């Protein structure tokens, strides 16, 4: 699992398909997520650009794509249970899977230890 400075995580599932979500720190900062706006399947997204929106009770937060690529699937459960992002941000609260267009982009991201120490 790798992390961005903007609190997204990405985990390779197989070959060039990866699953994306937000970190535990991100959900703690946002508070209760009450609505999740996910990208359309098939949409191409750019690394560092808006790819989804998390709506908390207080504010809307953009989720930036950690890498460039095509959206393959989205977490359908979040439409009825957005609180999964709070309860299980790095597992059941995943947002979407993406087909990476450039695997090298992963090299720019932090591993978990580096990410956690960046929060201190």
């Amino acid at each position, binding site marked *: 699992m790798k992390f961005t400075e903007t609190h997204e995580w990405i985990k390779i599932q197989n070959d060039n398909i990866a699953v994306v979500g937000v970190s535990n720190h991100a959900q703690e900062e946002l508070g*209760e997520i*009450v609505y999740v706006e996910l990208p359309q399947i098939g949409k191409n997204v750019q690394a560092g650009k808006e790819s989804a929106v998390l709506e908390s*009770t*207080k504010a*809307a937060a953009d989720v930036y794509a950690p890498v460039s690529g095509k959206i393959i699937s989205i977490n359908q459960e979040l439409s009825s249970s957005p609180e999964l992002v709070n309860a299980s941000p790095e597992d059941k609260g995943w947002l979407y899977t993406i087909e990476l267009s450039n695997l090298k982009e992963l090299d720019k991201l932090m591993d978990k230890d580096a990410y956690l120490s960046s929060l201190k």
Partner: protein
Amino acid sequence: MGTTAIAMEQHQADPLKKTALYERHKALGAKFVEFNGWEMPIRYEGTVSEHNAVREHVGLFDVSHMGRVSIRGKDAEKFLDYLSTNKVQGMASVAALYTIWCHENGGSVDDLLVYREDDNTFFVIINAGNRAKSLAHLNHYAKDFDVTIEPHYDNESIIAIQGPLAKALMSQIFPESSLITNMHFAKIPYIDEKILLSATGYTGAGGFEIYAPSQYIESIWDLILEKGNSLNIKPVGLGARDTLRLEMGFVLYGHEINDSIAPTESIGAWCVKLDKGNFLGKQALIALESSTDKRKEYAIKLIDQGIMRENADVYKDGKKIGITTSGGFSPTLKKSIGIVLTKEKLHTGETVEVAIRGSSYKAEVVATPFIKVKSGAD
């Protein structure tokens, strides 16, 4: 991930003010937010569970960022009636009244509670963001009246106990409170001082507000949490304070009213008594009544899934008609609700469209309050 709203709230040049309960909030694990120059708890456990605690049981709020000001003197009633759009003249003693103050040009100075202690003694509760402005407003117009103005900003604290079980809890701690009817208050002895118990609030859930010298506020706070433990009391942050007031369709200064929104245009227009005697701003409000520039506020509920926020454009039949002054998530309805300010005449049941991040979302015009309340208040 990026959130503009939170980033903006955290930016503040001056050091933030802290209430006398700041250490209590920290110990309770609060997350803090900047609110009008104050570092206030936005949530402890979570906004939704705190909101539900107030709707279902009881919650405890620190609202010491608001400020109390005493107005005394033989003209006190006349003076406050002149400043208020609601009718202060003839108010009963130990009663409280909600009003909006107007500028001469009709814009809103502040919204507040006016309390009458006796014939010549009143006090008012000023919003955090208006402490300086409203005190200056009082002092400016006091010149023509026989009154003295005394702020209690630096040595008093305010807490609110709200929810259907608030009255039962309060009567255990302060037996005198069971005699206080809605929108009334009592001054009672506490240690070597006096505190004010007021059967008021801004959640629609009923309950009390307590005005007390700051040196005693921690002990009162602790006592309420301790005695409320068996009732599942929760400390409640500003996040839920906002969702609770929005569900009721209550005005929030800086949103539904401000220096350029007249009280008669707002969702708080019910408190304006245009038929009372002369008051500051009356001529401007009367002129506005027959003006084509007059706007009004309506409650809207999002039909589509999504969350509308403040300052979203609102359309009807494809034409832009106004903007939202508040918007958010209603934990009770599990839908997004908001207030729209528009010149267009809207009717309950009509559909409008709200622009959220470039897409159009359907919303329905509804009556306020947005929810049916379960209140221990009356």
